[in-house]
Every structure is written in C-alpha cells, then in structure tokens.
C-alpha cells in the first residue's frame, strides 16, 4: 500500500510530516519505539531539505510517499531539486562537534543509524531519497 503526502517547504510543516508518518505507521502494527525512531529519521531528512536545499521557501514543494511492503517500508522523499546524498556525508566526530560548540551536524548521523538502507534515485526531473526500514511487527 502506498500513502502520499505533499507539503510546502516551511519548517512549521515538519510537524505535519511527522504526524503523517506517525498516523500511517500506526496502521501497520509497528511498535511505538520503532515508529518514533522512523518518524525522527524522516523528519531529519525533510528538515535538511527544507532548510538547506530550499532555504525555507514555502513556494517550493516537498512530497513524501510511504510504501508498506511485506518485510520493509520504503519512505520516498521526492523533490524537484537535487537532494544531498547522505551516503557521501562523512559524519563528524561527536567530540569535535562538542568542542566546537556547533549546534548542527548530528541529524544525518541519526538517519544513518536508524534506517537500514538509504538510496538516491533520479528520473523524470525528480530526485528521490529512499529510506528503507525492515519491519518487525509488534506482537
């Protein structure tokens, strides 16, 4: 089953994205802890796009598709602009982040630790960041 969501590139819309992911996953028997971490990972990628790719320009759009399969869930974050490839991102050392006092830099570390697979697809003037999570249904 595929669920779709569309929103404007404003930070205030992150809450709507989280609610959409949460409500969708609630229908598929995942544990509360799994849902919360998946919601976080999707939030991080969308926040990164909204802030860094689109400069919080709410005339731009971001689309999300959740494809629930038997053994995994795929989250497609679809953009008309090229998406920064997280896989090429070298995560900074936590100690270095703390020493420098900087506030950013850990979001993509979270995404990599939460998701099982991160892919970047292009085609049809669309750029897709696909996050895959293998699912463990709660008893």
């Amino acid at each position: 089953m595929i669920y779709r969501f569309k929103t404007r590139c404003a930070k205030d819309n992150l809450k709507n994205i989280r609610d959409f992911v949460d409500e969708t996953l609630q229908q598929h028997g995942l544990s509360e802890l799994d849902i919360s971490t998946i919601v976080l990972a999707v939030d991080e990628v969308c926040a990164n796009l909204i802030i860094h790719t689109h400069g919080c320009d709410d005339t731009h759009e971001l689309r999300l598709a959740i494809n629930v399969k038997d053994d995994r869930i795929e989250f497609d974050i679809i953009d008309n602009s090229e998406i920064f490839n997280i896989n090429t991102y070298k995560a900074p050392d936590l100690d270095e982040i703390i020493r420098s006092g900087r506030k950013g830099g850990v979001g993509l570390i979270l995404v990599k630790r939460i998701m099982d697979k991160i892919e970047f697809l292009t085609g049809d003037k669309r750029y897709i960041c696909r996050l895959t999570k293998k699912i463990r249904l709660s008893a």
Partner: protein
Amino acid sequence: MVSITRTSEDGKEVMQVQGEVDASSSIELDNAMKEALSAGQSKVMIDCTQLEYISSAGLGVFMSYLEEIRSKDISLVIYGLRPKVAHVFEILGLDQLLEIKDTRKEAEAYLA
C-alpha cells in the same frame, strides 16, 4: 510547539520543557539554555517530563553547551525523559555525555 518555563528554586535553576523541539522550535530551547546558564547558578535542572519529541536540532542545543557547562563547572541534570525521547539520546550516545535521571527526586539528589 514548545513551551519553556524557567524558575529559580533553592539555589537551582529549573527549566521545564514542554511539547516538541524540532528544527522550527529549537531556537527557543537555545535561548532558554543561554539564559539559564547565564543566570549565575551553579546547579541547573531540566524537567523533560512533558517533552514529547526532540530532533537533532534540540539535541544539538544540549551538545553545544556541554563545553560551557564543563568550563563553568556547572552541574546540569536532565530528568523525566519519556522512553521514546530517551531512546533518541541513546542512539547518539548523549546519555553517556549528559547527566540523565529518571525522576526529579534523583535529579535533586545528584545536585545535593
């Protein structure tokens, strides 16, 4: 989305964080932390019993003050994290870098 209340109690700075801290609201947590650490108290307690969600933007705020906390010899303790929120701290390993307690009583005992 986030509501932060600061009070001074028995020589301690107490900050209560309610709601959701994400990329749109982390600035409020940042401002409150800045003010709390500048208030001159050497003991700071952060009540997270009503914190429903935190993203990397919020975690980043806590991380960015770790050096200041250490250099000013401030004792800072976070308490009352809900399991889902606590898990986010654990994924990054921040539970090893910050003093985190389950209850206010435990937090007060740590600062005593």
